[in-house]
């Protein structure tokens, strides 16, 4: 039976290693434990978590110790004649009541904390977060800033299959093109919804995880204490690229935040002006192709792939009828503007010029040599007709 003892002690070692590593864990970005985070609530969640961990380890430890003692002390070679007892009301009452007390002790702080976490009233500002396959869209309800936020790491970096191995950055799945910028010290209410399937907006540093449900608007909130960059992910299976829709929050002091809003609004006005200008002008084939490639690689390649060859449920565009037959140009534009099933609608996100460019690009890239040139005016016209 020495083997048994060895393994049992191995197990004790294992558990103590676990405990030890919890203690030793660096408070930030631990690979072992929750993050304490940067808000009051996330701190409280962390503290409650640690308290539960210890109590649970103590409970489990007690059970293990009793079993260990029993198997050593009462093994047959050591204790050849078994006792005969088979019940004890006192004992049974004791081990019913003690767990109840432990649970009650745990429930009390949990209830208080939960009530605070769910109280989204009296917020200073609101951000609407819309989950989409597979990126997030943020809309600041107080300042009408609105943008989409996507994984910015190119597919070659995370797809090891057909690519030369590429050095992956520390946070290669946690980089986005447009960060969600938030002020510190303000109570920020998030309004979550989705335009397709259920997503879940999870920011570990805020201890905020809330599902984005199509057709309903969920609420949650945070108040960030420390400026910095915080990273999170989508936490509800939402289809193929569920693992590739990260969240990055940049928390700024109020003054810098206000400035950011200013620039964002100015950028928006400028972009609108440029878009209108671009839509009005007649583009050359080269310009359209260059612009189109840029848009395609950023927005479309993740599904339809770089070379237009498609992937599983995502149809190939290379050689696809819609992209080579000359009577299908309008259909081609429309599917991008309106979307279809799993194909997202891009009518709002892309300008007319960008749509024209990407259509031109798709009709002339990868051997789709149609020589078709699509001008923004046609897109504007079709949009108006919808």
């Amino acid at each position, binding site marked *: 039976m020495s083997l048994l003892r060895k393994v049992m002690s191995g197990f004790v070692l294992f558990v103590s290693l676990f405990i030890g590593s919890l203690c030793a864990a660096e408070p930030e970005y631990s690979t072992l434990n929750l993050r304490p985070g940067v808000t009051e609530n996330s701190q409280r969640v962390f503290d409650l978590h640690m308290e539960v961990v210890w109590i649970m380890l103590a409970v489990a430890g007690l059970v293990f110790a009793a079993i260990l003692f029993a198997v050593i002390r009462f093994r047959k070679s050591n204790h050849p004649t078994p006792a005969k007892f088979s019940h004890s009301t006192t004992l049974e009452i004791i081990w019913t009541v003690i767990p109840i007390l432990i649970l009650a002790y745990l429930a009390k702080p949990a209830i208080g904390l939960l009530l605070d976490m*769910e*109280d*989204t*009233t009296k917020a200073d500002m609101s951000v*609407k977060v819309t989950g989409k396959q597979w990126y997030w869209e943020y809309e600041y309800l107080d300042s009408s800033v609105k943008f989409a936020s996507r994984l910015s790491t190119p597919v070659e970096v995370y797809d090891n299959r057909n690519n030369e191995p590429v050095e992956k950055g520390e946070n290669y799945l946690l980089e986005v093109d447009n960060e969600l910028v938030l002020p510190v010290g303000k109570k920020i209410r998030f*309004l979550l*919804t989705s335009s397709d399937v259920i997503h879940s907006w999870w920011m570990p540093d805020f201890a905020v995880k809330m599902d984005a449900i199509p*057709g*309903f*608007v*969920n*609420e949650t909130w945070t108040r960030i204490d420390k400026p910095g960059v915080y990273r999170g992910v989508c936490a509800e299976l939402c289809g193929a690229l569920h693992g590739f829709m990260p969240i990055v929050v940049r928390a700024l002091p109020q003054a810098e935040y206000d400035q950011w809003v200013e620039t964002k609004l100015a950028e928006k006005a400028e972009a609108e002006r440029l878009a209108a200008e671009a839509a009005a002008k007649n583009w050359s084939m080269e310009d359209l192709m260059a612009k189109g490639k840029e848009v395609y690689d950023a927005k479309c390649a993740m599904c339809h792939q770089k070379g237009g060859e498609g992937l599983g449920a995502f149809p190939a565009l290379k050689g696809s009828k819609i992209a080579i037959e000359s009577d299908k140009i309008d259909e081609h534009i429309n599917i991008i503007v309106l979307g279809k099933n799993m194909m997202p609608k891009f009518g709002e996100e892309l300008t007319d010029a960008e749509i024209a460019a990407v259509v031109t690009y798709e009709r002339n890239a990868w051997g789709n040599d149609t020589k078709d040139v699509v001008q923004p005016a046609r897109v504007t016209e079709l949009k108006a007709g919808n």
Partner: protein
Amino acid sequence: MSEKVEKPTNYYVPEQSKLPIIGSVGLFVTVLGAGNYIHNTTGVVKAEEGSLPSIMASMGPYILAIGAFIIFYLMWKWWSTAARESMANMNSAQLDRSYRQGMMWFITSEVMFFAAFFGALWYIRVFALPWLGGEGVDGHKAMTAVLEWPGFQNLWPLTVTPQEAKDGAGASFSAMGAFGLPAINTAILLTSSWTLTIAHHALIDRNRPTLILFTWLTALLGAIFLCLQAYEYYHAYVDLGLTMGSGIYGSTFFMLTGFHGLHVTIGTIFLIVLSIRCSKGHFTPENHFAYEAGAWYWHFVDVVWLFLFVFVYAI
């Protein structure tokens, strides 16, 4: 299996049987057919003409028909075997109890099947629709109506869905009233429960003519109920514009009444078989498990209807 046997005292384990495997194959073929049939009619299969999936889809109806035939054959065989065994006195009192308890638990599972749909109806009416209609409290779903469904009002029967309200469309159908056909149907089912009870008592009192008459009468009431329900559906689709696609009202309405109707159909067939068996003198006051099973089933269908009448039609 048909040798004459005296009432067994120890337990009867039936010998090998081909029925279960036939049934399993039948179920498999049926659902294979049903799935492909659905794909055929709804065009889910995006595959090229002539490819395997589209060939399968186009064969769906035939596969389904074969499956249904196997199932029908199986049920016929299974129950006639069971009836033969029962009449050959092969079933001990213990086995008789097993059958009864088995039937009871089967009905329990049926109750839970309906509970899923009633649960859906209650959840929708108590939680989902108020939230969609802007009755969420501050801090909890209060913004749903504002941001997602402007203009939507939570009124039951829900003749304007959130999407329709948002698009500014008007009511697309009218709801089914409670006090026309449904009330008549309630009366019919209640009466049928009563006639069935009379028949059952007649069985116990060895009153054959009454037994046969009232069992037939019950089956007939069941059939009338079904005809009226068919007419009700016709009325809904043609006059009221109420279909399965009529938002959540149409969904719950047709799901609940539809599955109930299916059960009435099964029950009615059951009663017809029982009536025939009554005429053939299959049942004795001591030995009539099948009759009781049918009666329980019918009462269960009846009680479900009462719930339907209250929750689907009346309130």
